[in-house]
């Protein structure tokens, strides 16, 4: 065997070991590295009231209510499997609206309601001009169709 081949085998073996170590680390991180809890994670894993977390999902259409004081809003967050009520006092980002994604920072109170101290709007991977707004979008084929 030539020295060149020895080095190649050594380098490839080292590479496989590094990739294996990386994959193991990443799979161990799986839940810890998640940026937010989805409502279904909250339901299945259980989050203690008062524990600071981030809650992420879609704002349920028709659930957004503005309180009389003008800064407090109530809304429901869903991931399609579970829905959680949430409340927030303050200035919401421009892109925060019903039917779009949100990441809320805060904690659950004893009644199971999420009290947010900060709201972030989560943008999805869709980009389109205004004329196409209101069309229906197929997540798997990326096809746009005129709404019926």
């Amino acid at each position: 065997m030539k020295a060149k081949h020895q080095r190649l085998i050594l380098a490839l073996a080292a590479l496989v070991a590094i990739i294996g170590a990386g994959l193991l680390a990443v799979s161990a991180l799986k839940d810890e590295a998640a940026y937010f809890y989805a409502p279904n994670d909250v339901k299945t894993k259980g989050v203690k009231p008062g524990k600071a977390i981030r809650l992420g999902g879609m704002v349920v259409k028709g659930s957004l209510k503005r309180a009389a004081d003008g800064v407090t809003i109530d809304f429901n967050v869903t991931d399609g499997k579970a829905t959680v009520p949430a409340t927030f006092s303050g200035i919401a980002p421009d892109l925060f609206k019903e039917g779009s994604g949100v990441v809320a920072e805060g904690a659950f109170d004893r009644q199971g309601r999420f009290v947010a101290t900060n709201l972030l709007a989560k943008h999805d991977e869709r980009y389109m001009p205004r004329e196409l707004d209101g069309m229906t979008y197929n997540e798997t084929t990326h096809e746009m169709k005129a709404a019926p």
Partner: protein
Amino acid sequence: MHRFANPARFLKIARPLTGWLLWPGILLLLAGCASGLFLTPADYLQGNTVRILYIHVPAAWLGMAGWTGIAVSGLMQLVWRHPLAAVAGRAIAAPGALFTAICLMTGSIWGRPTWGTWWEWDGRMTSMLVLLFLYLGYIALANGSARQGQGGVSPVTAIFGLVGAINIPIINRSVVWWNSLHQGPSITMRGSSIDGSLLWPLGLTLFGFTLLFAAIVLMRMRAILAQNKVEARMQRLTRG
């Protein structure tokens, strides 16, 4: 590849190639930026902030492609002892770090109006920041372990480049593996969820910045080879 192991033969090709990459690259990216600024419509949700896309995406691609290049040249240096691979590794590091920084900055500027925050520690942003630190570490290690008269990176730096490559698939998959604030991939094997009317300038800037990057790498490789020559000649002179 070993045909180009001879620096003289490499330079004979690299010298004219630099111009052929540089000028079309600049032309394409200027055309892409101009059409991205003036010709494409605003996004239905983000409005005009969507236009940062035409810089942000090429910068992210080149930051990651740069490290892939560092890893490949590291492998070629360690296994085949290719003399130009070490030079290529050093030449890629600085522009790679620069484009990674541009990606982070444009992302931050876009994040403030879109998400409502300059910075969040989500998977995509954190792994991209790690890439910037890897670049800075690579440059520091290459400078710290450099030997007199050798412009290329040392073997230990090449190993560092190979090990750091594990971060590249992590960056790419971070938005799929973990819940993240950063949106999922828009352009996949199945198609693009960016409408065609917004997408086409991205092709121009992607291609333009890539050509520019390649031209910068060639220029830096030529500069390093020229520096080697100067140092060798100086040594001969002092020995007299």
